[in-house]
């Protein structure tokens, strides 16, 4: 039962992290810049590189966070640590609900201006797979202000799992995080253009906002119920 709860926490953290939109936005930006300049074959390679970069960073940052918790604490975080994480999750939920998306009919996000500018610049200049991998890493890094709480919560639950399950959970977490990128890529491959995707994202902006915010709140409630109070 304890393991199932930990797996559910990791699953919930991964779904919440996947619902953040910076990765998808940058992928569309990369498509836009790459298709405008290059042949589709090269664009395909570059976008796979980008997705691999996001996968790599998600895996590494989760593993590193778990290691840091283990080195600093010796064990998974106790009740006090979890209470801090729950509080942070609630704060981030409010930030997402109130500020994450900018006003207007666009999908611009409330990320630091220099990060958005840098990502746009790099997307325009990404010419090889290696640069695309770096862009994927940078994008995942840019999302950290919102995703760091999720990463710590997932890492904490990861440490409570048996060793055999840790690798599976780690890979599963990263796979779920990059799933929207793979789906977007498949949708483009099947003939939808950027305009259709972008219009769909704008139409469903409110849904994404509420979904992400509610996911954070559900996770906070889940942690309180099953990890802190131990129902």
């Amino acid at each position, binding site marked *: 039962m304890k393991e199932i709860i930990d797996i559910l926490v990791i699953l919930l953290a991964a779904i919440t992290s996947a619902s953040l939109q*910076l990765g998808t*936005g*940058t992928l*569309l*930006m990369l*498509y*836009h810049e790459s*298709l*405008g*300049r290059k042949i589709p074959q090269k664009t395909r390679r570059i976008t796979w590189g980008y997705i691999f970069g996001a996968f790599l960073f998600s895996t590494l940052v989760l593993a590193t966070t778990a290691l840091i918790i283990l080195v600093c604490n010796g064990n998974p975080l106790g009740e006090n640590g979890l209470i801090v994480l729950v509080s942070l999750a609630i704060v981030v939920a409010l930030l997402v609900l109130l500020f994450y998306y900018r006003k207007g009919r*666009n*999908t*611009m*996000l409330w*990320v630091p201006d220099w990060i*958005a500018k840098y*990502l*746009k610049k790099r997307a325009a200049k990404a010419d090889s797979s290696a640069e695309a991998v770096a862009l994927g890493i940078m994008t995942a890094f840019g999302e950290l202000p919102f995703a760091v709480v999720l990463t710590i919560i997932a890492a904490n639950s990861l440490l409570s799992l048996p060793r055999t399950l840790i690798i599976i959970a780690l890979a599963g977490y990263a796979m779920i995080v990059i799933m929207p990128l793979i789906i977007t890529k498949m949708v483009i491959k099947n003939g939808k*253009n*950027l*305009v259709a995707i*972008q*219009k769909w994202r704008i139409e469903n902006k409110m849904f994404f906002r509420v979904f992400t915010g509610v996911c954070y709140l559900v996770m906070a409630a889940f942690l309180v119920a099953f990890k802190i109070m131990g129902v």
Partner: protein
Amino acid sequence: MALIEKVKTRRRYSKAVAEEKIMTSRASKTKVKFSKKKLVAEILFEARVLNRHLGAAKIIAERVADEVETWASERSFITEDDITQVASKKIAKYDKDLAYIFKNRGKII
């Protein structure tokens, strides 16, 4: 030839520059000349993104650029945003998706 200002946010005119009929802004004070060639290239870039036939796209781009140039020549100063707005309206007569993507460049993240 009209002078274009890179303006994205609020516009502001100082007394000195108003006399010279040059627009300035808080965002940027760079002045550039309207370039028909650049506008055609930008429209073709977006057409490639949407996988449009380049021959047809070139005809549309040149027509639109001609119309925008005529529009710009009647004004003493315009902004890049003005050009985007006017060009996207004119592109929309031929291709709505192309107009949409042209209008929303750089507004994804």
